[in-house]
């Protein structure tokens, strides 16, 4: 999915990386804990997070994240923006909360990490348990 599409779907403000919106992300990951990002994220990902400090951007660089979307209208601090500019990581901000942001992107075809592995594709087609 092109970052320009992400911007439109989530009605994002572009914090940095306006010139890179033609770039593509292959997978999405929503997390506020960077330990979880490091454990589960795939390369060329879009990271959705509410963590605005510089560690989110440093984690993004280590894990080869293409762009970060800050959810719930949060804005990153100056150190985070400066580091993202230096490393070429696109930063976007949406007023939508995490659940809705992830849901909208998934609805538009951006897969999650487990779908890339192929292991849980069937889960999408499985009927809901009768108790639900």
């Amino acid at each position, binding site marked *: 999915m092109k970052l320009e599409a992400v911007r439109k779907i989530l009605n994002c403000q572009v914090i940095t990386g306006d010139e890179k919106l033609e770039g593509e992300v292959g997978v999405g990951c929503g997390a506020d804990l960077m330990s979880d990002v490091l454990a589960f994220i795939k390369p060329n990902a879009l990271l959705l997070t509410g963590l605005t400090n510089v560690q989110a951007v440093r984690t993004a660089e280590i*894990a080869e994240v293409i762009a970060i979307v800050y959810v719930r209208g949060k804005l990153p601090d100056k150190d985070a923006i400066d580091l993202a500019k230096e490393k070429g990581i696109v930063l976007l901000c949406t007023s939508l909360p995490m659940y809705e942001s992830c849901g909208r992107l998934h609805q538009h075809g951006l897969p999650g990490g487990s779908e890339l592995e192929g292991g849980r594709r069937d889960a999408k087609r499985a009927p809901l348990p009768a108790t639900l």
Partner: protein
Amino acid sequence: MPSEPLFRQRFNICGRDFVDAGKASITIKGILREIGIDSSLIRRAAIASYEAEMNVVLYASKGTMELRITPKDIRVTVEDEGPGIPDIELAMREGYSTASDEIREMGFGAGMGLSNIKKNADAFDIHSVVGKGTSLEITFRL
């Protein structure tokens, strides 16, 4: 007998220094990229190094990280002066964490660090003495 390293670099890590936390691992990633290591191996080495570096920053007073590259492997050795780990088996369990609220507010302390290092490495060795510190040797085969 281990091969003589073709390249060796040592980094100092300061406990509680959240401004520079992760910089050594990013330098390691840059070095591996520069010498043309396979990109998936670079990613594994960078993630494992970063987890290990963050553990020093978050839990220890100080430490060192050393990168050694031989014709056969890449080794990252991390040694810290810190509280040590009383039960390594428990600490290796995904989700087990002794992190404070402050650490969690930084986005860390989910209890995934040590197990994620092991997952990304080809070999992983850990030793710890309570009250003294912890040492890790993380190996990636070339």
